[in-house]
């Protein structure tokens, strides 16, 4: 089956004021359904408060939805525990936005990358360090950096470490939550290139969560647009970006301050 992940009717509510006996709730995610095929990239787009990050966390198992189901490789993952949960975690890995907060400041970056190998007991302990260095090479980092603390690395380097850590367990799906938003444009370009290379070489499926439509258009096969917790549009990138059907998508596209002259040059 080419479908790797299916999310159906996910709803997650948060308490938002009111006395305990009449608590009001706000739906951060409201009945969202989508699917990701093996080896494909889905861009998940929305502004702040759209629920895209919460959805990412639900898929990763870091948050529990109130309703709906998540099916990974044909198996229901909500309510998994123990070994089955471990197995799922090994195959679905996160890349976070903040290259400064996503690595333990007291650990060397090599050790952070090795963490999933240790926790999932992948390979023999003696081989794990070698694998870490391999991963460093794959993401374009000088292996000599492995022993350093994150504070001595630049933002782009830290993000590469985060990607290396995500790749350590050979995942089939990566959930990348705003992985380039905190980076400068020149560094962003390098990291996006890296994502595209990895997709080509490793065939990893990706959910690329971002608010930046330019980025999404560049790296995704399909795009899903979220607005205030609801999924308003989903389809092939080309269709969504150039033939949007929902008003919000159109508003989003219209709001991009695009340098018009640039398109002439290209």
């Amino acid at each position: 089956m080419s479908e790797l992940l299916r999310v159906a009717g996910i709803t997650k509510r948060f308490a938002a004021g009111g006395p305990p006996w009449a608590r009001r709730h706000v739906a951060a995610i409201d009945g969202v359904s989508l699917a990701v095929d093996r080896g494909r990239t889905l861009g998940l787009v929305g502004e702040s408060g759209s629920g895209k990050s919460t959805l990412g966390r639900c898929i990763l198992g870091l948050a529990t939805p109130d309703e709906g189901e998540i099916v990974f490789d044909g198996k229901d993952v909500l309510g998994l525990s123990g070994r089955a949960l471990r197995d799922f975690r090994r195959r679905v890995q996160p890349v976070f936005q903040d290259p400064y907060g996503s690595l333990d400041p007291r650990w060397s970056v090599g050790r952070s990358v090795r963490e999933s190998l240790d926790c999932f007991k992948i390979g023999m302990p003696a081989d794990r360090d070698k694998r870490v260095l391999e991963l460093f090479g794959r993401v374009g980092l000088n292996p000599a950096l492995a022993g350093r603390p994150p504070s001595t690395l630049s933002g782009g380097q830290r993000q590469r470490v985060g990607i290396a850590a995500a790749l350590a367990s050979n995942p089939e799906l990566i959930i990348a939550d705003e992985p380039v938003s905190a980076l400068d444009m020149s560094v962003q370009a390098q990291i996006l290139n890296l994502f595209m290379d990895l997709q080509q070489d490793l065939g990893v499926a990706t959910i690329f969560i971002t608010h930046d439509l330019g980025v999404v258009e560049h790296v995704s096969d399909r795009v899903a647009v979220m607005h205030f917790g609801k999924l308003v549009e989903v389809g092939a990138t080309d269709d969504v970006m150039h033939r949007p059907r929902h008003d919000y998508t159109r508003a989003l596209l219209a709001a991009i301050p695009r340098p018009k002259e640039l398109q002439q040059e290209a």
Partner: protein
Amino acid sequence: MSVVLEIADVAVRFPGNIARAVDGVSLALRRGEIFGIVGESGSGKSTLANAVMGLLPARSTVTGSIKVNGREVVGLDDLTLRRMRGAEAAMIFQDASASLDPTWPVGDQIAEAVRAHRPGPAREARTKALALMAEVGIPDPARRYGDAPHRLSGGQRQRIVIAAALANDPKLLIADEPTTALDVTIQKQVLELIDRLRRDHGTTVLLITHDLGVVSQVCDRVGVMCGGRLLEVADTQVLFGRPEHPYTRALLAANPAAAPRGTRLPVIPAEWSVETLEQAERAREPTGPGDRR
């Protein structure tokens, strides 16, 4: 056509650093124009803006000349600077929440800005504040006057900050990444607001940003900074259509919105990249474009 801001060969040096944060920048802003300074982190753009407002830390050294409305600002004493700030030149920052007192009503904060330079009865300041709130597009200002900042959305908070900045009709407005923290739809509205205010009041705006899209939407002219140096200055359309400096070209090409889908984005040559500059800073050796001149 009068020159509202004149920066001549300004260099800024922070104690303990060998490399200069701003290295020999010169430019002149004409009345009523929106001038964008675009650059990545560490380019010195914010430092330059802070230098104009006299907001640099006490131990930094500033050389060169900065003239706001013809008056020299470098080396001015605190009292004169304070009189200048808000009245002749005003500045707004990226995070509106950090600029607003979380416990004060937003209307009062605008009124306070009014009274800082024009002491008078509270009622007058309040009336003026309400007028400003309407002008920046806050719906139903009378009702929102007493709201605390957290009751407003991010975009509305930024509008309040803009209102406070314009309270005393400054000739120069410096906006340091004013829309970076905002959603794209709100960003567009805030930029349109700045454009409209510029036209209505004749204010000159110095807009600092890292976002080329922002620049293309509202700026008349653009300056590109990297490593403390001003590499290129041109009219917006000219810069985007016929960029001269290789860094500018690389920056424009690295924009994912510009490149065809699925292709690798061109990498900015190592000597210009932010990472090289960051590493150089940490290794405490001057490097980057400065050395190649």
